[in-house]
């Protein structure tokens, strides 16, 4: 076995705009119940446009900034390789087909909503999808298991938004700075 260093797995070649468009289109079409895992597979595994570490950095920034995470990811990656037009191309590739498909589904549903089984199937899907969201919420609590203040922040946010129906703007204006301040204090200690 050769003892030489392994070749870098990073960006083999800078993708063209067409490649960006097609890559993100593939992500959009595969992504049932969350597109991020498919984006990871495409970017790191399949095309090797990003290393694992680069992906994690881009992902954490996408999740940190407001807006749909996957759109932010497409903006950053498109721009990194092909500038502003690259961002636009990646977003278009991501959204075009899912947008057309969901509009077709909505139109089909409106046309056949009188059928008992169509109505039933839709209720069944929304009940199951609700379960997916709740499970995701619970999974997200795992990293904060031993951090009481984080559990408290999550609890207060849940009560304010879910039960009291406080407007999101006011809730964020109160909770975000308070929570960041506690995080800061906890880090300094």
């Amino acid at each position: 076995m050769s003892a030489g260093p392994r070749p870098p797995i990073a960006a083999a070649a800078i993708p063209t705009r067409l490649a960006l468009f097609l890559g993100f289109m593939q992500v959009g079409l595969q992504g049932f119940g969350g597109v991020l895992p498919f984006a990871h597979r495409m970017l790191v595994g399949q095309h090797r446009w990003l290393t694992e570490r680069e992906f994690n950095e881009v992902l954490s920034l996408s999740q940190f900034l407001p807006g749909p995470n996957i759109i932010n990811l497409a903006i950053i990656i498109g721009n990194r390789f092909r500038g502003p037009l690259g961002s636009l191309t990646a977003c278009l590739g991501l959204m075009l087909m899912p947008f057309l498909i969901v509009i077709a589904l909505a139109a089909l549903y409106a046309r056949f909503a009188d059928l008992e089984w169509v109505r039933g199937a839709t209720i069944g899907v929304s009940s199951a999808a609700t379960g997916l969201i709740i499970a995701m919420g619970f999974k997200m609590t795992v990293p904060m298991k031993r951090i009481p203040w984080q559990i408290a922040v999550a609890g207060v946010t849940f009560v304010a938004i879910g039960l009291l129906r406080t407007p999101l703007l006011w809730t964020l204006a109160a909770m975000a700075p308070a929570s960041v301040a506690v995080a800061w204090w906890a880090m300094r200690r």
Partner: protein
Amino acid sequence: MIPPVLLELAWQFGLLSFLAIGGVNALIPEIHRRVVEMEHWMSNADFAQAFAIAQAAPGPNMLIVSVIGWKVSGVLGAFVATVAICAPSSVLTFAVAHVWDRFREAPLRVAIQHGLAPVTVGLVLASGYILARAADQTWAAFAITGATTALVLVTRVHPLWFLAAGALLGAFGAV
């Protein structure tokens, strides 16, 4: 002359774009509050259907915004709502991405990330609660939600199977 309802869609979702911390799943309670409770664009049941249609299509979960736009004002409404939820935050991301890399290890950045994470968790759980109230009108529907939640947590089955099972059970009149 642009129809007022399109401007209203653009304004509402454009604003929400900046509030979408933790993605669109965390935004569902606020979308529900505005679309169902304030604007009366749709009923609770319509909202649950829009959610189901968005989940049944491949693609990002923000598609619920497209379906709401479509319900309010057709294909043009869908387009306006979708662009509105994406564009403002995208411009911000574009502007910040360069600067941000320089602060990768800055303590304030770490504190912000640690601080916002539990807020997002609370928001996502609130989404689940609001959706369950909108979608689960029968005990059978409630049971599907409960079973899906439990199975996702203890197995590694692909999410699509749960949606398919829900659709089948619903189609055969179980809910």
